[in-house]
């Protein structure tokens, strides 16, 4: 066909373009009930009823907003009933609501071309009866494709034959019976090199005979570009004309005839400009409408396309997973030109992949923006347009009411590179969930749960603001902070918006969270850590206020010092090694308030000296160990002598109520049944000495039974060289009820008590000497063993080695100075924090010198000469670090308002923020875990609408250890 004639034809049809489309749609609608047995069953979607509320909904439906912020989709029986903003849409009370505040929801993508089935292996060049739906496995698991967001696909019988058969449209989720949308959606015609030179047809005869000869293989068209139109025209002519009498029955021709007469939709696949033009003229010449698929060179014939009104499924040629192969010097090799797709303006456009793959469709489509397509065009080209072309727009391709609830949940903008599909709903049922991960630990994808927080400003530390930044939290810890961080596929994306201010979680520098009013002093061997189980309502209240860490201590401090514990205010069930106790012992606290300043030194010295002595044993051990290791390395170790015990048999003593061997039976107490043993006792004056002979196991420990006989009563103790420290001293007591018979009790004083009964079996005396070995100080190989741990003195040891600070509650300047003199000068303690320190300004010079810091009293406003001043402001100006305390349990929730007031009273907002976060963390030396937004620290973030200490700022969200708690 010559060009001018073609254009004339096209122009003639251009006027009628919309009309032809309408007819096309009508043909689809008409063909539907006739041809699709299964479609009618698919139409009866029988799914769940639910509502999904999401941050953004993109319905891609005519008559609905392009984007609905904070919208709701109401799904009844698996079908969408209503879509609208959460503020105006009424959800019936009995409908369960799934709330996905960070999600973007859009219709499932419709892939208008796929390689899911086919090509078939039939050899006929014109083979209308091959139906792609026959090869579709209804029961297969398509989660791998759903994960890419594709919920509806066109199945193609192939690109390898001139007429390769009938396509189909199917859903990839939902029950098998509802998966086929159209079992015959089109008659597929392909133009171009791929259909040239089909194989020769051989007819196999079942009974060859002289009358029934084997015919030579029959050659088929086309082998040239011209031949393809000839073959098509021939086939259509043959099919549509009545069969000649005597001619063989031709089933393929009959099928073609049926489809052609029924005006079955035509799908013409072509890439090169000449084939596209040829296709358009073929359609025009036959008075048919249809759509084109392929179109690598469509931009070159954009005008013809536009004029014909023929829609195009443009297939993107993109190699994401591996670079494409070489095309070499072949000048005819296809080089898709995506640079000027903007030329296709006005052509109804759908997008698919040229190789029919589905996994990267959304990413490939996103790149089409380079070629000049608008975001809206691209999204429509992946949803509503292909749905309309395939004749299934009444059921899929948009979130319009009445469609099947096939929708995808994304964690960001649909065309952003870092966006991933989080969930897929098919007919309202969850068909894919990114959180369902492999169970084998080796096969785990990204970390447990990744969270990416984006915001206008990220406060990394004092005066270190990151504009338009992102934070990646994995497994509860900050992994990366920067302008653009990695976004793992399963990540939850929290977009706080350009105005948001993201600060680290606040630290309450002294509070009593979890004590529930118990105001007893806490001995130094006890930590508060066991109090903190799973988060309760009070914790949650504090956490919601942005206070993510509390340094908790008792209301009153023990004379020997009390422990403070740093704890998170949100503690999920333990999942990993990470503990929500930031520090079991964050500080050791003393109280010197109200004491005679002269006695302060004494009261502090007592525990500190004990601690010092304890520390020395450790230092000695460390020194010995170092020496031993040095010797060992040099090979100079001396052999170790083992302690010996001796036993000497002795002569017999007569008329002695005690001396001899006794059987002993212990009953009662915690013992389920009596235990028998034997003891050997000696009497010297009134003193009894002895040892256990049986049971043998018990004699393995070095022990000695001692006692005093007064009249018939015996009281005594047992010395045992036990491998563990006994909680109470062992004792025994009894009475000689008759000769050779003692009844009494034994046990651990105040803990266990059992009844014992002894009977003498002989009067032989056994002399023995017991070598009481002290607790072993060396191991088997002579290695020095560590001294026993004294929990009472451990905090002091940590303090003296400057691992933790001393928190001293002091008020007056005299107290402060005295404390500094003792702790800093005498004991060389480097980290001193004063609690309250109301008169700190008077001792400021000394405090600055000793690098002491102050936890401000709850009442921060002080007055001097009736002139009010804010202590925090005052101390910061004087160069003394400060932190804020709640001195309360869930009262810690008001800490941010205390900060606001500090700003009001002259402190800089930045200084307050520092005092609330990294300042407090440094004070307690917990800045390795909390206090700022840096890699390695806990993922504790508070998202404000502005600077935290602007009066107008509101807390939007609180994230603790990567989990959203508000």
């Amino acid at each position, binding site marked *: 066909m010559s060009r001018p004639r073609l254009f004339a034809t096209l122009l003639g049809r251009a006027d009628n373009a919309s009309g032809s489309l309408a007819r096309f749609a009508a043909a689809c609608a008409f063909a539907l009930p006739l041809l699709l047995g*299964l479609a009618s069953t698919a139409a009866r979607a029988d799914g769940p009823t639910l509502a999904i509320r999401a941050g953004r909904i993109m319905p891609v439906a005519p008559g609905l907003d392009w984007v609905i912020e904070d919208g709701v989709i109401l799904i009844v029986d698996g079908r969408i009933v209503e879509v609208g903003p959460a503020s105006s849409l009424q959800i019936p009370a009995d409908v369960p609501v799934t709330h996905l505040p960070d999600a973007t929801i859009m219709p499932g993508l419709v892939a208008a071309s796929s390689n899911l089935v086919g090509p078939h292996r039939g050899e006929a060049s014109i*083979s209308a009866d091959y139906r792609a739906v026959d090869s579709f496995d209804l*029961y297969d698991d398509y989660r791998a494709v759903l994960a890419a967001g594709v919920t509806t696909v066109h199945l193609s019988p192939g690109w390898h034959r001139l007429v390769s058969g009938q396509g189909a449209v199917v859903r990839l989720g939902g029950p098998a019976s509802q998966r086929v949308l159209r079992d015959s959606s089109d008659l597929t015609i392909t133009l171009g090199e791929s259909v040239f030179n089909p194989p020769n047809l051989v007819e196999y005869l*079942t009974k060859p005979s002289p009358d029934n000869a084997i015919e030579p293989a029959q050659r088929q068209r086309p082998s040239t570009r011209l031949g393809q139109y000839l073959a098509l025209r021939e086939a259509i002519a043959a099919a549509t004309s009545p069969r000649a009498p005597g001619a063989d*029955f031709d089933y393929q021709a009959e099928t073609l005839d049926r489809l052609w007469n029924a005006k079955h939709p035509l799908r013409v696949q072509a890439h090169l400009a000449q084939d596209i033009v040829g296709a358009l003229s073929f359609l025009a010449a036959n008075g048919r409408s249809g759509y084109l698929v392929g179109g690598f060179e469509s931009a070159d014939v954009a005008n013809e396309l536009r004029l014909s009104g023929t829609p195009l499924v443009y297939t993107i040629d993109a190699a994401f997973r591996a670079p494409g192969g070489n095309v070499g010097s072949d000048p005819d090799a296809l080089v898709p030109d995506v640079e000027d797709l903007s030329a296709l303006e006005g052509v109804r456009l759908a997008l698919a992949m040229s190789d029919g793959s589905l996994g990267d469709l959304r990413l490939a489509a996103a790149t089409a923006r380079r070629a000049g397509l608008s975001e809206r065009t691209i999204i429509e080209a992946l949803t509503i347009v292909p749905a309309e072309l395939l004749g299934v727009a009444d059921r899929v391709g948009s979130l319009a009411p009445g469609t099947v609830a096939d929708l995808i949940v994304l964690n960001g903008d649909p065309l952003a590179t870092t966006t991933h599909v989080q969930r897929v709903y098919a007919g309202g049922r969850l068909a894919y969930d990114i959180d369902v991960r*492999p169970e084998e630990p080796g096969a785990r994808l990204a970390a447990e749960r990744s969270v990416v927080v984006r915001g206008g400003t990220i406060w990394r530390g004092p005066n270190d603001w990151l504009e338009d930044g992102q934070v990646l939290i994995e497994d509860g810890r900050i992994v990366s902070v920067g302008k653009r961080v990695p976004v793992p596929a399963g990540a939850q994306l929290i977009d706080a918006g350009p105005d948001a201010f993201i600060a680290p979680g606040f630290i309450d520098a002294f509070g009593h969270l979890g004590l529930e009013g118990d105001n007893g002093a806490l001995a130094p061997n006890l930590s508060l850590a066991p109090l903190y189980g799973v988060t309760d309502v009070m914790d949650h209240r504090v956490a919601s206020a942005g206070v993510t860490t509390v340094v908790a201590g008792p209301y009153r401090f023990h004379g020997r010092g009390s422990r403070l514990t740093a704890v998170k205010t949100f503690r999920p069930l333990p999942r990993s090694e990470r503990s929500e106790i930031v520090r079991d012992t964050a500080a050791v606290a003393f109280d010197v308030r109200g004491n005679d300043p002269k006695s302060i030194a004494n009261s502090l010295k007592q525990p500190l000296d004990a601690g010092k002595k304890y520390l020395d044993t450790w230092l000695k051990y460390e020194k010995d160990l170092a020496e031993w290791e040095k010797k060992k390395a040099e090979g100079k170790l001396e052999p170790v002598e083992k302690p010996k015990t001796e036993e000497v048999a002795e002569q017999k003593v007569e008329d002695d109520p005690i001396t001899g061997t006794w059987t002993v039976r212990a009953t009662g107490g915690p013992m389920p049944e009596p235990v028998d043993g034997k003891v050997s006792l000696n009497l010297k004056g009134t003193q009894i000495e002895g040892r256990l002979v049986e049971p043998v196991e018990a004699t393995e420990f070095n022990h000695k039974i001692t006692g005093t006989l007064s009249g018939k009563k015996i009281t005594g103790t047992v010395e045992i060289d036990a491998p563990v420290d006994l909680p109470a001293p062992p004792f025994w007591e009894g009475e000689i009820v008759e000769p050779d018979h003692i009844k009494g009790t034994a046990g651990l004083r105040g803990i266990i008590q059992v009844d014992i009964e002894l009977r003498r079996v002989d009067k032989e005396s056994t002399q023995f000497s017991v070598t009481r070995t002290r607790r072993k100080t060396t191991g088997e190989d002579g290695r020095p063993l560590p001294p026993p741990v004294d929990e009472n003195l451990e905090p002091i040891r940590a303090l003296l080695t400057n691992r933790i600070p001393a928190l001293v509650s002091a008020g007056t300047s005299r107290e402060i100075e005295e404390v500094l003199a003792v702790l800093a000068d005498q004991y060389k303690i480097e980290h001193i924090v004063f609690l309250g320190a109301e008169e700190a300004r008077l001792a400021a010079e000394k405090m600055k010198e000793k690098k002491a810091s102050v936890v401000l009293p709850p009442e921060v406003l002080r007055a001097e000469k009736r002139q009010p001043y804010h202590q925090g402001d005052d101390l910061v100006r004087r160069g003394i670090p400060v932190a804020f305390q709640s001195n309360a349990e869930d009262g810690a929730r008001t800490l941010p308002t205390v900060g606001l007031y500090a700003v009001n009273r002259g402190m800089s907002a930045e200084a307050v923020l520092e005092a609330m976060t990294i300042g407090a963390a440094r004070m307690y030396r917990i800045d390795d875990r909390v206090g700022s937004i840096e890699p390695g620290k806990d993922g504790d973030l508070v998202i404000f609408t502005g600077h935290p200490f602007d009066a107008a700022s509101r807390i939007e969200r609180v994230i603790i250890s990567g989990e959203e708690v508000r």
Partner: protein
Amino acid sequence: MKPMFRGLLGAAIVAAGILSAPARPARAAEPPAKIALTGARVIPVAGPDLEGATILIEHGRITAVGADAKIPFDAMEIDCTGKVIMPGLIEPQSWRGLDVPNETLPVAPFLDVADAMDPSRLYFEDALRDGITTIHVIQADSTVIGGLSRAVRPIGLTPDEMAVAAGLALKMSISPRGGYDRMQQMATFRETFRELDEYTETIAEQKYEESLSKENKKVDVGPAEARQRGRKLLTDADHDDQHRNLMRLKRGDLIAWINVGSAMDVAPAVQLATEHGFFEKTVFALGSDTFKAIGELKKAGRPVILPEDLFHRERDSVTGEIRETFIPAKIHEAGLMFALQPNPNSSMAERYLTYQAALCVRHGIPRQTALEAITLNAAKMMGLGDRLGSIEAGKVANLTIYNGDPLDFNSWVEQVYIDGILAYDRSDDPRLEELLRLEGVAKEADEAKRQAAEEAKKESAPADGQNAEPKPTEESKPAESTSPAENARPRRGGGGGR
């Protein structure tokens, strides 16, 4: 003299036949007119188990079953006390009696398995030894429309002698044959049946013309009416080979034996059978994952043959978790009639029908259902339910006699009666005897090898110490003396005759 001579000659020829295939205990002679098997526990399958019952066989048919059955004075009485008698097992489908599993032509309904059956295949002998008395020989799955099947006994020297019922079922496969894809497979079905219609109309019209021309009349009606009239006149002989059996299938004369290899094949199979009118005569042979379409199978309600491996194992594509499904449980839950087949590919016990049934029982399927699945159900599917598959008066005397409960793996087949003839007797099974003897020899060889190795070890072990003085005589003696005694014991019974 002459007839007698001829009779002797005949007997000699029969004897020679038997001798030439000595391994197979073939039908020796006409059965005794009346046999009474007494004292056994009888599992009739058709009803509750009977203790100490008598089965009376007259001319190859069962005439009475029960404890109170009267034994005619002229019956040959066989004491079966302590034995368990079951209906002969039925293998619901097998190509293993054929020389090759499949034909190369995709559509070959004119074929009959009888032409490719080889009665001398060891498979038949093994089947008999395993207690199988009826085998449905049918071609394998690599086909679109295959040939006719045949139910046979595992005895006899020719396919016709073996036949129980010829031309039973027509094989079809929805799952694509080798080298085909599903689109081609289904297109071939559509084309074949469409072409059949076309062909029938053509010959119907011709037939009508012919019938009129016999009376010297001309066709007086339109072609449609002529076809309509002609179709009524058509007989099997009017069809050519390619179409005859398809026509019989559509008429309901043949059973449609359809391979439904995967879940996605169920809907097309049902559609095909419904469209062409043979749905009521359809049996589905299932593949491993076909049970996933249990909803559609249940709705169809047709009997099914279960795959050889009764477990379906599948790895979850995302979590990597392996799910195992016991297929009979799903089928039984859906209330479908099913038959089990042995798994010849398994070197394990799945080779035995009784084991497959026991496996079902172990997974909660009632014993009665499991027993029916290896006997009566297959008979019903072949349309032979009135003749085979249970021990009832009137049925063919196909019996398998076990020395214990058939589902107990310690039991074995003692004797098999087919048509009232003693077709197999374990005590007269030279091949089994040889096999067990060889097994004993192998065991002895293994034991000798083990001992040699042990001795070599002992000799090398104390070489490093001072007392390396070996004491070979004392140590090896007791070992040598025990081994023959140990090996001698299991030779006969321990191997298990099955």
